[in-house]
């Protein structure tokens, strides 16, 4: 505890990365009870190395812990299985001191060997983890990724309670990476016993353990009575009922059978729910680290002309699009969402100005307009949004044909460069962790502008790429402010080139039953969607 206080007091005061004053437990919270959460889709897996959709993300968080964690309801880091850590002066060596006496659900105590095993496992190509790339800054990553080594050279077990991680380059986001589910600590014996089925028989250290999984029907989480955080969780049991259409889940909630519909309020029912004061009072609204945008392929004429891209930015009536989705979003003028550090306050972006847009098109030599295609995912409300975009574009002479396809097909068209324009709805970037760097590399940086990548604009500005690299190497907490400024410059620089037309930042609406207790923040937790299972409780 001493090292934690002395070495990180500085970081704490500079709030970079922001370290939370730990969460104050709710004095009104009551222990006990069981709640029902519904989902449309079956849960794919609970293996923390594999699970990477918003549905299993929060479930995995409740079964497993990593060295770092976030204070409930916030984007602020707090220590998890690591009681404290030290950072070397050059920012490249992290020493984590484990919390003694933490036990896996199978009763065995967690040691530094488990941390090393877990990191080796997630980066080993045989695990097929979608998150392996997050650990690229750890020394020895390239060797394990290419199969030349079975273990990460940079991760050393100092003693049973201490693990040291050496990086090959400074990485300002490393503590966030250690808070990702992919960095969860798993027991080797349980992983090996279950083999490929570990995702169905998870064993972790988390607040809940998996008590039952009837495929296609339900999962039951039981309270971990030995959980290392005092006082939580409150609930004895959480029942996840899967295979429930959102509309049916809402009916069941209104009937008192469901506590939280995991897929949210169906768009078609949103106005009806919000018009009823009794129901609207049980809806919690919050921001999320999400931006919805239109990409323009800079390799495809006429979008290779920056004036055309700027014209599109000026042609879109964002307020009207927000209305189309019942006001469940705020208009956006830059890639980063407002709740993300590095967001540029006061930046105006491109105002809605169809006449100015026409002038720009004329200057670009396409004053008579042109024909193009707008790709969109085929689930509501995205086709409706695409139609609004189509109308806005036709007002300045651009005739966009809508290609409404399944999600996987749109992703493919974006990744192989065949789509001139894409509306990102349903596939938009939602941050993995609350840091501006997470909105750059794969979707706006040169690294993502490759076959099968996610940079659907194919935008690659090498100057900005260099700035981004520089920002991410500013690992020293004292540089935090300068780093955010640099990131802000990067995003403003991107908007000058206008590879995207940012449209809106979606708000989140979580509906709950009358008996659910706990602060509103827990119901729009930026990390745990739909709710932070460890801290909510029932009042009856």
């Amino acid at each position: 505890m001493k090292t934690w206080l002395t070495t990180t007091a500085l970081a704490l005061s500079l709030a970079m990365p922001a370290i939370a004053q730990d969460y104050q437990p709710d004095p009104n919270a009551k222990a006990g009870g069981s709640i029902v959460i519904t989902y449309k889709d079956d849960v794919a897996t609970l293996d923390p190395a594999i699970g990477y959709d918003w549905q299993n993300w929060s479930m995995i968080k409740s079964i497993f812990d990593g060295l770092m964690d976030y204070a409930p309801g916030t984007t602020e880091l707090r220590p998890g299985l690591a009681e404290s850590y030290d950072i070397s002066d050059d920012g490249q060596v992290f020493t984590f001191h484990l919390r003694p006496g933490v036990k896996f659900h199978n009763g065995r105590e967690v040691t530094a060997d488990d941390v090393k095993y877990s990191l080796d496992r997630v980066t080993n190509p045989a695990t097929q983890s979608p998150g392996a790339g997050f650990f690229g800054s750890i020394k020895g990553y390239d060797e394990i990724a290419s199969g030349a080594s079975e273990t990460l050279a940079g991760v050393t077990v100092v003693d049973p309670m201490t693990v040291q991680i050496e990086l090959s380059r400074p990485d300002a986001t490393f503590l966030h990476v250690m808070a990702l589910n992919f960095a969860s600590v798993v027991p080797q014996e349980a992983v090996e016993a279950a083999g490929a089925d570990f995702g169905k028989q998870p064993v972790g250290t988390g607040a809940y353990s998996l008590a039952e999984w009837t495929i296609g029907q339900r999962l039951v989480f039981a309270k971990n009575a030995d959980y290392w955080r005092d006082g939580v969780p409150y609930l004895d049991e959480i029942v996840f009922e899967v295979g429930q259409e959102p509309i049916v889940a809402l009916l069941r909630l209104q009937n008192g059978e469901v506590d939280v519909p995991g897929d949210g309020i169906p768009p078609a029912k949103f106005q009806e729910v919000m018009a009823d004061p009794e129901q609207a009072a049980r809806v919690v609204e919050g921001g999320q680290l999400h931006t919805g945008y239109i990409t323009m392929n800079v390799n495809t004429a006429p979008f290779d002309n920056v004036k055309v891209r700027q014209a599109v930015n000026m042609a879109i009536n964002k307020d009207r699009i927000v209305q189309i989705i019942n006001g469940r979003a705020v208009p956006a003028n830059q890639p980063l969402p407002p709740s993300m550090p590095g967001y540029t306050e006061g930046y105006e972006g491109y105002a809605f100005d169809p006449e100015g847009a026409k002038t720009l098109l004329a200057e670009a030599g396409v004053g008579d307009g042109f024909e193009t295609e707008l790709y969109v995912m085929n689930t509501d409300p995205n086709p409706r949004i695409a139609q609004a975009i189509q109308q806005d574009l036709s007002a300045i002479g651009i005739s966009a044909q809508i290609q409404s396809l399944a999600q996987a097909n749109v992703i493919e068209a974006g990744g192989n460069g065949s789509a001139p324009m894409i509306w990102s709805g349903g596939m938009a970037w939602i941050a993995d962790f609350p840091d501006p760097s997470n909105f750059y590399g794969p979707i706006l940086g040169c690294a993502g502008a490759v076959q099968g990548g996610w940079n659907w604009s194919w935008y690659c500005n090498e100057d900005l790429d260099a700035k981004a690299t520089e920002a991410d190497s500013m690992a020293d907490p004292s540089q935090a402010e300068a780093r955010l400024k640099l990131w802000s410059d990067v995003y403003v620089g991107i908007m000058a080139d206008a590879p995207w037309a940012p449209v809106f930042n979606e708000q989140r609406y979580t509906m709950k039953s009358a008996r659910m207790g706990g602060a509103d923040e827990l119901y729009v937790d930026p990390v745990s969607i739909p709710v932070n299972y460890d801290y909510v409780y029932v009042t009856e």
Partner: protein
Amino acid sequence: MAAYFIRRIVQSLLILLGISFVTFVLLYILPADPVRQIAGRSATAQTVANIREQLGLDQPFIVQYGRYLAGLVQGDLGRSYLQKTEVATLIASRLPASLQLMAGGILCELLIGLSFGVIAALRRGRMADQVLMITSFVAVSAPQFVVSLLLLYVFAVKLGWFPIGGYGTFAHLVLPALTLGILGSGWYSRMMRSSMIEVLRTDYIRTARAKGLSRARVILRHALPNAILPIIAMIGIDIGIFMGGLVVVESVFGWPGIGQLAWQAIQRVDIPIIMGVTLVSACAIVLGNLLADFIAPLIDPRIRLR
């Protein structure tokens, strides 16, 4: 007769092989890459390449299909790309629910269809006949998605007679089975009606009436069994229609069957599951048709199989 069935079974196997090939081709040329679904948006190019290689998806089509067939022969349907669970396990754990629902659906469509058909035939040309035939027309045309939501809203939400979706008890089965049954009942009532009318016109019915049997006895003992036989033989063919209905009905009612499994797998491009469910459904349809052929000569000795 034995030769006929051996030939039919061989034909069926060839049909299944053909279906597996066509499905595999369709999934192969699909403009969506399953590896990208597995790898997610943060994966590096190297991770994507690793996963592609491990799943054998970097191999040419013929090698991939050959490997799949080799597994199939050993009863191995492969593992789900995203869940990592064996497809056979996933299907086996969901099949009982689908079979229950189908049994319930068949029962519903027979009960509704046959009784409507008989009544309409007996009241031919009158009000009851017209009402029932219009009803059956609506039943055939109504989309199952709408029917299921309507039933759910009226009988579960408003009246509270049945649970709102889910699985487990008999009460849970009623509404989804009814939804499935309503579609078929429309066909059955129309066919039952014409079959019944035909039988009522035959000489032996006239003879039965002439020798003084009561109207009820004539209908129940003489007309009905003869009219019903050709219709029963159709149930086997019905299984194919039911398989399609399962996808919709199971999704709406949260019924944990293979229809729901297929729907979720399609959205996630989880090819091994899509293949597995397609093959199991194809098997069911082929078996249903075989069964119909088996039953036909037992019901009507005039039918000879060669």
